């Protein structure tokens, strides 16, 4: 399969669903290298389900997701592991291991996938925690961290193996506006400083305008993408009025 130039993720004719129900039908879109890409939609439109298909947690009914030209769903063994190493994921609930401290959580992938010495692993884990502003909370357990700190620690864990793509599931959900803005700033820094491509599922409008270069809008009725483009352009020029209302936070 030939990858379009500049694209790091290509979704082709992807149909997803469960138990005979089709949630999203024949989706086609691309994520460009280095951009912050957001998947938007109303509740129940299949945003998180799409994300879980993109990271290979679920098998699609048909179609494929190519990450750097490789199909994760069809890969097995070492090939699958090689693709998985290309991206990190931050889950909505942070999914930090509760019995490990923040630094142990971040160190875990290094322990499992590298042969580095302990000093190197500690230095890297601590540098990632410093990148997300959590160096002083390294020895704390997740239960002793606030929601925003947990999300930052989850980002530190997701980037510890230097992935080129980072998937974020609702990064701002449940956070206060100040913490949420701090997280947006971190996403911008990481995208610019480390060249990481971001794919995020969200419906936090301030976050979308603050960080997203391009968005797609999912519609549960159409079971597909109804709009694609930069958020500020779509707010004024989307053909569907409800997309404009969504981006202006106005009732339909």
């Amino acid at each position, binding site marked *: 399969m030939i990858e379009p130039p500049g694209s790091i993720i290509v979704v082709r004719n992807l149909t997803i669903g469960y138990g005979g129900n089709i949630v999203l039908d024949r989706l086609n879109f691309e994520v460009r290298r280095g951009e912050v890409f957001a998947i938007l939609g109303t509740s129940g439109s299949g945003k998180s389900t799409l994300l879980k298909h993109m990271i290979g947690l679920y098998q699609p009914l048909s179609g494929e997701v190519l990450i750097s030209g490789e199909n994760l769903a069809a890969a097995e063994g070492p090939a699958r592991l090689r693709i998985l190493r290309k991206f990190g994921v931050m889950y909505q609930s942070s999914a930090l291991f509760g019995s490990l401290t923040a630094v142990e959580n971040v160190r875990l992938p290094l322990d499992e996938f590298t042969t580095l010495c302990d000093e190197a692993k500690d230095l890297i884990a601590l*540098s990632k925690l410093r990148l997300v502003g959590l160096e002083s909370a390294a020895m704390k357990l997740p239960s002793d961290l606030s929601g925003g700190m947990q999300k930052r620690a989850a980002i530190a864990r997701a980037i510890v193996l230097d992935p080129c793509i980072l998937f974020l599931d609702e990064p701002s959900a449940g956070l206060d506006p100040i913490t949420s803005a701090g997280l947006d700033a971190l996403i911008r820094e990481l995208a610019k400083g480390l060249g990481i491509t971001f794919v995020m599922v969200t419906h936090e409008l301030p976050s979308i305008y603050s960080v997203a270069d391009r968005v797609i809008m999912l519609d549960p009725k159409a079971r597909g993408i109804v709009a694609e483009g930069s958020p500020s352009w779509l707010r004024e020029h989307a053909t569907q009025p409800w997309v404009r209302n969504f981006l202006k936070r106005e009732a339909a």
Partner: protein
Amino acid sequence: MPANEAPNLSVRWEVLKASEGAVLLTFRGDLDTSATPTVWQALEKELLGIEVSSLEIDAQHLAYCDSSGLALLYYLYTGRMTPGATVRISGLSPELQNILGSFSLDDFKALQGHHPVPRSLPVEVGAATTSLLRDLREQLEFIGEVTMDLAASVCRPRLMRWKEVFRVFEVAGVNALPIVALITMLVGMVIAFESAQPLEELGAQIMVAKLLGLVMTRELGPVMAAIMLAARSGSAFAAELGTMKVNEELNALQTMGLAPIQFLVVQRVMAGILLTPVLTMYAMYAGLLGGVPVLLFVCKFPLPMVLEEIQGSVQYGDLAEGLCKSLVFGTIVASVSCLRGLQTGVGPRAVGDSTTRSVVSSILLIILADGLIASITYTLRR
């Protein structure tokens, strides 16, 4: 010193002694996770073997450098491999220079120096005693509250959510029948086998029937049924209530004006009290059923004789003793499991801990109660 030519490595490095104590270290290629561990070890050996007063690291020809490579550069930069030397890095791209800024020796030292302080023995003993006393107080409060609510529900049956009682009855009782039958049949069979041989030596093999009848009715029927109830259903009660507590469902009940004990616990305790005698009767029969084939086919006694022996040995009093025990055991298992569920703390291991505590406490209390009842009935029978 010649450039390192290690095969299969994506990076090459060269250690050049420029003048007295001054060393130039040059990297070429990709310093990534696969290459760094080897480079790290090799450099540690090379640099510790020579005297270095100043180290210049030339990173200009590094095509790629990931976090592990930067960790190595930082380790070198902080003089960990060349103690006392001045270190300078040149040729690093501004992006990598930026990320290198996120490494910190202070953070590293803080982590290395962090050792949890162990508590002294008196503090440990004090904490354990306080926790034990608190647990006892909570148990007493819980028993009082459950008893009051149960009495209220018995006086006014409309207060009881009978649908939930029947659901628990089905889940914890009816669905447990196959496993209870299997285990107690096997236990009955083992007892018959183990006692047949020594009794044969005494010429009293027919006493196996008597032994089996008494043991299954008075002791093993109630105890086995209760232990299986604790392991199978008590643990489920604790996990269910524990998860509800973690998910703040118990808080939701309280703010709706519903007491968790009245809403969740009383039904389970009522179901436990009602189903344990039934389950015990079933276990008694299953145990006998497991032992009878041994008497028929191994000891070669005719069926009417075996049945007559069992009927003759087991009195109504023995059955009543077994059923009374089962009532006590059922109450213990259901209430202790619910209490442990409600006591669930915070953290990822909380529900698991509650489940373990529910099974351990239930079995311990079953055995204690069994011993107590056995000694009382022994005294009464004399």
